[in-house]
């Protein structure tokens, strides 16, 4: 009873604490937990794989002594738990070990390949959003009309035609026949190594450097793969936008907006779309994260040295350090994007506060 009395009057804690510090703390703990889980699963996968990391290093013909020495050097003779902690320690220091495939430290490799993917995925997502959202909105507004059906077919082609088909066809037409875009690779040979790599994203690096001819060339190379990736996210984003919009359009506040005499344009783009911002952000973040995971086939076809290709190559050649390093980085990006979209959610949806 006394307790109840006390609580009734009690508005304990400052609003700052309530709105920012506590949620931030919770978020951090949850990131940490997810990361730890991610590391644990990667670690387990690394051990489960029927691939001997020692053999990969010392080679087939190594003697028993060499083998044992290498094994010891890798810490593989220690108990699993200890190995796990060593692994975590290494990862925290950004040390994923050496890649067998490239003979470079994995962290260095990732620093090299990730910006390529980041650049591609970002542009692709931009494309997907810029076209996908309006397409979804229009399809919802004109539900059942031919435009809705066309939007559906467009989206489904994106879903069901494998990217290498679209990619190679695109290359053939726009590069091979028409010559409108650059070919495979990130740059033409003569533009290579001209601008210093600051971010690793050539578009940004060249812009920072003010070297617009490199920028143009890089753009001509990225535009096709980015469009293709964008097509995939467009497919997803437009379908999701459509279904969110359908829900909103039957809401009562939309009728209110119409009662107010607002033009249909305003009703749809301002009122209805405003209400799906939050859901859209989540969807976009998810599709962005998926693109960041790297579309292996796109990267292969366009000779794009990105992380998807890197991880897959490593996987095929049993380069476990590289696989695990790549996985941890991709996972981290994923988790961060998730959190980012949560934060935006708080920011955009007044009800979430």
């Amino acid at each position: 009873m006394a307790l109840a009395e006390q609580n009734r009057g009690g508005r304990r804690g400052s609003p700052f604490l309530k709105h920012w510090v506590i949620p931030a703390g919770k978020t951090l703990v949850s990131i940490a937990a997810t990361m730890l889980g991610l590391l644990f699963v990667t670690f387990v996968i690394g051990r489960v794989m029927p691939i001997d990391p020692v053999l990969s290093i010392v080679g087939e013909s190594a003697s028993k002594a060499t083998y044992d020495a290498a094994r010891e050097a890798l810490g593989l003779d220690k108990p699993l738990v200890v190995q796990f902690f060593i692994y975590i320690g290494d990862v925290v220091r950004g040390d994923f070990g050496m890649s067998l495939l490239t003979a470079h430290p994995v962290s260095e490799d990732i620093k090299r390949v990730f910006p390529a993917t980041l650049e591609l995925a970002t542009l692709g997502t931009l494309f997907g959003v810029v076209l996908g959202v309006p397409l979804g909105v229009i399809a919802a507004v004109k539900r059942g009309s031919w435009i809705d059906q066309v939007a559906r077919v467009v989206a489904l082609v994106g879903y069901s035609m494998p990217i290498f088909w679209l990619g190679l066809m695109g290359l053939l037409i726009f590069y091979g026949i028409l010559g409108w875009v650059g070919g495979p690779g990130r740059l033409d040979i003569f533009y290579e190594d001209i601008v210093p790599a600051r971010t690793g994203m050539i578009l940004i690096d060249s812009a920072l450097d003010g070297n617009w001819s490199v920028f143009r060339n890089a753009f001509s190379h990225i535009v096709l793969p980015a469009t293709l990736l964008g097509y995939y996210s467009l497919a997803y984003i437009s379908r999701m936008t459509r279904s969110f919009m359908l829900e909103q359009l039957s809401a009562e506040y939309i009728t209110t907006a119409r009662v107010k005499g607002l033009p249909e344009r305003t009703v749809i783009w301002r009122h209805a779309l405003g209400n799906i911002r939050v859901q859209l952000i989540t969807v976009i973040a998810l599709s962005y994260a998926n693109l960041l995971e790297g579309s292996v086939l796109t990267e292969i076809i366009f000779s794009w040295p990105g992380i998807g290709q890197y991880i897959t190559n490593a996987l095929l050649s049993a380069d476990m350090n590289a696989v695990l390093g790549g996985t941890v980085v991709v996972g981290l990006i994923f988790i961060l994007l998730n959190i980012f979209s949560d934060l935006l959610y708080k920011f955009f949806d007044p009800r979430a506060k």
Partner: protein
Amino acid sequence: MSVSEPHKESWREWLMTDAPHSRGQARAAAWYHGWLTFRGNAMAMAGLIILVGLLLVAAFAPWLAPQDPFTQDLAGRLQPPGSEGHLLGTDSLGRDILSRLIYGSRITLYIVLLVALIAPGAGLLVGTIAGYAGGWIDVVLMRITDIFLAFPRLVLALAFVAALGAGIENAVLAISLTAWPPYARIARAETLTIRSSDYISAVKLQGAGPLRIIIKHIWPLCISSLIVRVTLDMAGVILAAAGLGFLGLGAQPPSPEWGAMISEGRKFILDHWWVATMPGLAIFTVSLAFNLLGDGLRDVLDPKSGDQG
């Protein structure tokens, strides 16, 4: 109640009734109403017809296929569509693409059905438990979901197969195991809205346990949004199965699995476009059908949309 009563009415009336006389009739009537809604949607019907067609093709493959899907003819390889005896052309070993597509529908259906059962099933289980239980169970389950979601799909699939061994069943399992997290999220979101509703409270007041509530009361309502999502994901599943092929997990040659056929055709795409395009079109048609069906089902299954329109 007289047993013979229904016979006096026509079947249609019997199904359309607002006052069913038995559980069976009520269920049949509910299905029939759904069917009517569905039938009113031309697009959804188109989807259904395609899928029924696919089922028939799969069932009668040996009778429908003009040729043996495995017979090679190295002299007659890479024939364009419409050439003598090969409506859709031949592949690099001179096999008839149409026949391979027809036989491949069996494998495709098999993969699709298996994944469609496992992945949403697992997602439903995890999502509803997390959503209903709340608290730390929710936190733990959703963290796990996040971890799986954050994992590059291929790596995860390979790890599973490393543990399970290769084979098409395991490939399907691997795909399912990488595909469940989004379903779990959907199911959880749905559960969160359902769990505080009055009808759940009402069941609680009868002393029903959490398990019963989840299975009997929450699942039936989550399933509709899952089905819609699953039908959207179908093309992705078919392609993912093909993608696992190059890790040695997918269908093994000479199996005419559609995704594998596309991969095989990749080499010839610039000069012999049909080798990859034909199976691509098949996948496109089927996923379009699933998608149209999904949209129709959404209308039928969504209790909120009720009897409108």
